[in-house]
C-alpha cells in the first residue's frame, strides 16, 4: 500500500445534458453528490436530535417539573434516541461511505448508482413522518427508542407513524448496505486485493453485512408490534400465549449488532487518520481485519446483556456475561494497534488527529465501562440507570460522533479543494471534549448512586450532578454550531488545498486532485503488488 501510481487527470468524456438546480439533486446518481446529500441530512437531524437533548437537559437542570409534562419528556427521550441513531449517525456514515469508498477502491462510482439515489431519498419522508408524529393525537411515541412491549402497544397513533418511518429508514439502510458491499467486493481496481483495502473499506464491508442481516429483524419486530396493536395478534401479550420478553429478544438481536454498526465505521475512520498523522503505516493491519470480523461475529452472540434483569436462569445469564466480556479482546486489539501506529512515528496534531486522539481516550472509558456492565451481578445495580446512559454516550458520542468530526476535517479539503480554518477547528475540538466530559462523566456517578433512566424528575441527592450535566450539555450543544461555521467557511472561502492535502496521507483518494473531479477513476488505476 505504500506506493500507488499517481494517475493523471481523466481523459475527456463526451458531455451529457445534465439537470440543474433541484432536479440535479433529486435525480443525481453521482456518489459524491449523494454523499453530500446524506451528510447534510444527517447534520440537520443531528441538530434536531440535539435540540431535543437540550430540552431534556433543561428539564433535568433542577428537581421538580419546570417545563415539560412527563409524557412529553418521554416523547423527547424516545425521539432523541431514534433521531440520533437512525437520522444522524447512520446516514452520516453512509454519506462518508458514498464519498470515500469508490475513490478508495479506485471505482468510478458505487455499484448501483440509481439504487443509491433511491436509498437516500427514502430518508427525508421518513424524517418528516417521524417529526410529524409529535402532532398526532397523543403525541409522538413515548416508549423509549427501545419500544418495549406492552408499553409500545399502549401508545397512540404516533407509534404507528414511527413504525412506518422506521421501516423506511430500514429499507434505506439495507439497500445502502447492499450497494456498499457490492461496490467493495466487485468494483475494486485491479491489484487491490482484499488485504490491500484501506481499513475504512474493511470496516464498512463488515458493517454492510451486519446491516443486511439485522435491519430486517428490526423490521419484523416493529411489524409484530404493529399487528399486536391493530390486528389482534398476541406476539407480546401473555393473554394470547405471547410474551413481552420475546420483544426484547427480537429487538436486541437486532439492537446489539446495531451498536456495532454504529461504531465499526468509526474504527475504520480512526484507522485512516492515525497513520496519516503519524507518518507511518497502520500497525498490525492483518490483526485489525481479523479483529473487525471477530467483532462482527461476536455481535450476534451477546444480545442478552441488555436483559440481565428480566429473570434469566443461571445458564443464559452466564453465557451472555462471558460472551460480552470477550468482545473486549478484539476491541482492545484495535486500540493497541492505533497506539502501535503512533509509536515511533512523527506526530502532528491537526484537527482530524485531535479528534482521533480524543476518540481513543474517551472510547477507552466507554469501553471499560462496558466491561463493568458485562458483569451480570454488577449490571443488576446499573441496568436502566444513568450509568448505562453514560456508557453509550461515551461510545456513541465520543466514539461515533467524534470520528465523524475527524473524518469531516480529514476529507473536506479533498472534496472541496479548500482547507478549513485550523484554529477554529481546534477550538471546536477543545470545547467539545471538555463539555462532553462535563456532561457525561458525572452520569456514571448518578448511575452508581441509583438514579434511574427516563425520569423527568429525581430525588434531591441527584441534583448537583444533574445541574453539572445540563450545563455541560448546553456547552456541548452550542459548540457544534462552531463546527457548522467552520464547514461553511471552508466551503465558501477556504484556502486552496493540494492533491495530497496531508503530508502522510496514503491511499487512492489522495492521488486525485483536490477538489476530487466530478468523475474520478473512470479508468481504474492499477494497484501494484507490493
Amino acid at each position, binding site marked *: 500500500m505504500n506506493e500507488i501510481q499517481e494517475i493523471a487527470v481523466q481523459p475527456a468524456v463526451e458531455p451529457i445534458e445534465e439537470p440543474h438546480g433541484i432536479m440535479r439533486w433529486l435525480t443525481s446518481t453521482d456518489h459524491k453528490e449523494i454523499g453530500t446529500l446524506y451528510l447534510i441530512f444527517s447534520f440537520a437531524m443531528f441538530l434536531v436530535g440535539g435540540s431535543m437533548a437540550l430540552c431534556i437537559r433543561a428539564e433535568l437542570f433542577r*428537581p*421538580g417539573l*419546570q417545563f415539560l409534562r*412527563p409524557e412529553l419528556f*418521554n416523547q423527547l427521550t424516545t425521539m432523541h434516541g431514534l433521531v440520533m441513531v437512525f437520522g444522524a449517525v447512520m446516514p452520516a456514515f453512509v454519506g462518508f461511505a458514498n464519498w470515500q469508498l469508490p475513490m478508495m477502491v479506485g471505482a468510478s462510482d458505487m455499484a448501483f448508482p440509481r439504487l443509491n439515489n433511491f436509498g437516500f431519498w427514502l430518508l427525508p419522508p421518513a424524517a418528516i413522518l417521524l417529526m410529524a408524529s409529535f402532532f398526532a393525537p397523543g403525541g409522538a411515541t413515548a416508549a423509549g427508542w427501545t419500544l*418495549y412491549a406492552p*408499553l409500545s402497544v*399502549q401508545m397512540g397513533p404516533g407509534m404507528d407513524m414511527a413504525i412506518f418511518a422506521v421501516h423506511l429508514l430500514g429499507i434505506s439502510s439495507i439497500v445502502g448496505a447492499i450497494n456498499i458491499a457490492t461496490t467493495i467486493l466487485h468494483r475494486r481496481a485491479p491489484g487491490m486485493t482484499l488485504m490491500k483495502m484501506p481499513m475504512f473499506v474493511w470496516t464498512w464491508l463488515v458493517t454492510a453485512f451486519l446491516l443486511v442481516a439485522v435491519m430486517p429483524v428490526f423490521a419484523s419486530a416493529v411489524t409484530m408490534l404493529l399487528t399486536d396493536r391493530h390486528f389482534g395478534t398476541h406476539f407480546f401479550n*401473555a393473554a394470547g400465549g405471547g*410474551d*413481552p420478553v420475546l420483544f426484547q429478544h427480537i429487538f436486541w438481536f437486532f439492537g446489539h449488532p446495531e451498536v456495532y454498526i454504529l461504531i465499526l465505521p468509526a474504527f475504520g475512520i480512526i484507522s485512516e487518520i492515525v497513520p496519516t498523522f*503519524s*507518518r*507511518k503505516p*497502520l*500497525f*498490525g*493491519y492483518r490483526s485489525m481485519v481479523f479483529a473487525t470480523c471477530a467483532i462482527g461475529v461476536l455481535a450476534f452472540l451477546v444480545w442478552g446483556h441488555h436483559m440481565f434483569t428480566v*429473570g434469566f436462569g443461571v445458564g443464559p*445469564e452466564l453465557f451472555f*456475561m462471558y460472551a460480552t*466480556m470477550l468482545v*473486549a*479482546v478484539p476491541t482492545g*486489539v484495535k486500540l493497541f494497534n492505533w*497506539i502501535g501506529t*503512533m509509536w515511533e*512515528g*512523527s506526530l502532528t*496534531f491537526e484537527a482530524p488527529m485531535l479528534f482521533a486522539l*480524543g476518540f481513543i*481516550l474517551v472510547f*477507552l*472509558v466507554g469501553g*471499560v*465501562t462496558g*466491561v*463493568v456492565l458485562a*458483569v*451480570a*451481578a*454488577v449490571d*443488576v*445495580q446499573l441496568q*436502566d*440507570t444513568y450509568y448505562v446512559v453514560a456508557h453509550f454516550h461515551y461510545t456513541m458520542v465520543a466514539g461515533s460522533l467524534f470520528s465523524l468530526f475527524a473524518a469531516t476535517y480529514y476529507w473536506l479539503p479533498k472534496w472541496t479543494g479548500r482547507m478549513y480554518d485550523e484554529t477554529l477547528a481546534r477550538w471546536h475540538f477543545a470545547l467539545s*471534549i*471538555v463539555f462532553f*466530559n462535563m456532561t457525561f462523566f458525572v452520569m456514571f*456517578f448518578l448511575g*452508581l448512586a*441509583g438514579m*434511574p*433512566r*427516563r425520569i423527568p*424528575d429525581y*430525588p*434531591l*441527592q441527584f441534583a448537583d450532578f444533574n445541574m453539572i450535566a445540563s450545563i455541560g450539555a448546553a456547552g456541548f450543544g452550542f459548540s457544534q454550531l462552531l463546527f457548522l461555521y467552520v464547514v461553511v467557511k471552508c466551503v465558501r472561502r477556504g484556502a486552496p488545498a493540494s492533491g495530497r492535502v496531508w503530508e*502522510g496521507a496514503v491511499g487512492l483518494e489522495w492521488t486525485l486532485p483536490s477538489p476530487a473531479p466530478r468523475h474520478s477513476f473512470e479508468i481504474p488505476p492499477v494497484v501494484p503488488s507490493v
Partner: protein
Amino acid sequence: MTRKALHILAVTAPLFRCGLARARSVSNFQPPKTQIAHQIYDLHFFVQAICAGICVAMFAVLFYAIVRFRKSPRRIALQFTGYKPVEIAWVIVPVLILLVIAVPATHAVFAMKDTSNSDITVKITGYQWQWRYDYLQENIGFYSALSTPRAQIENREAKDENYLLEVDHPLVVPVGKKIRILVTANDVIHSWFVPAFGIKQDAIPGFIRDAWFRVDEPGVYRGQCAELCGQEHGFMPIVVNAVSEREYSAWLADRHAANQSPARAGDAAGAKTYSLEDLMSGGAKVYTDSCVGCHQANGQGLPPAFPALANGKTATGPVAGTIHIVVNGSAKNPAMAAWKNQLSDLELASVITYVRNSFGNSVGDLVEPNDIAAVRHENP
C-alpha cells in the same frame, strides 16, 4: 501550548473519578445492606480498579507517545507494521484479566439466583403507577403509592428530604430473614429496584419472576421503578421498612386486625351527611393528590390517553357511570386504575362530586360515602 494543556485536561479528567468517589457518598453505590449487595459492591470495586488501571496505563502510554514522538526536525518515523510478541501479549493478557474477573462474577450470579429456603414470600405487582405488595402466607395485601405532594413536584412548595422517595404504605419485612419476592406486573413492564439490597427484578405482565434478599440491619430503604412504564415512571418509588422480628409480628397483627380495607376510614363517615361544600373541598384535595397528573389541573386531560373531564361524557353523564369508572377502573384504558383500594369511601365520594361540579361541569348532584360503599359491596 493551549493544545497541549487541553490534551492534559482531557487525559486526566477521568482520573478525578476515583477521588470524587471517596469524597462524595452520592457518587458510588449506596451502602450495601444485604450480602448480595456487599458481593456486588466488592466485585464492582475490583472490576473498576482493573478498568481504572487499564485507563491510567493507556493514558500514560498515549500521553508519552504524544509528547515523545511529535514531529520535529530530528524525528524520523520508523516504518514497522507489526511486532509479533507484543501483538500476542495484548491478546493473552486481556483474556487472562477477563478470566480473573469471571471467577467472582460467576459466584455472584449463582448467589443472586438462589431463591431456595426462604422464610417469607411477598408477591410484588407493578401497576401504572404504583406497587402492590401481597404477603401470600398472611393474606395481607396493600398498594404502595408515591406520597410526595403534587405541590412539591410543581415547585409550589419546598421539597422535603425524601422527595420522590416516600410512599403511603411501605413494604415491611423482618431483618435477617430470607425474603423471596415474586415479581409481576398488571399492565406493562416495571422493575423493582432497591439499590441498598443489590436487587433489581423486572416485573413482566402475565408472568412471575422470583428473586430474594435478606436485610442485614434495620432501616428504611428506598428505591425507584427501573423500567420505563409510561408517564409516571419516575413517580412510583419503593420504600422498604426493615424492622426487628418483634416489630414485624406486631405490624402483621395490626394489618390482620385492620383487615386491609381502606373503607374502614369511611365507615364512620357513612353515618354522617355531607354538604356539597364539604365534599367539594375534600374532593379538590383528593383530585390534586391523585388525579391531576393525568387529567390535569384544569380537567382538560391529555386525550386520547387521558380523557378530558371537562364536559366529559362519563363525568357529566349518569352518576353510576362516573362512580363505576373511578371505583373499578377502566377495562378499556388500563391507565385508569381502580381507586377503590387506595381511597376511602369518603375520598371517593368527594372526588367524584368534585369532578362532576368543576371544570365547567355543573351536574349539581353529590355522591355520598354510602353510595360508594354500596358499589363496593357488589364488587369487592
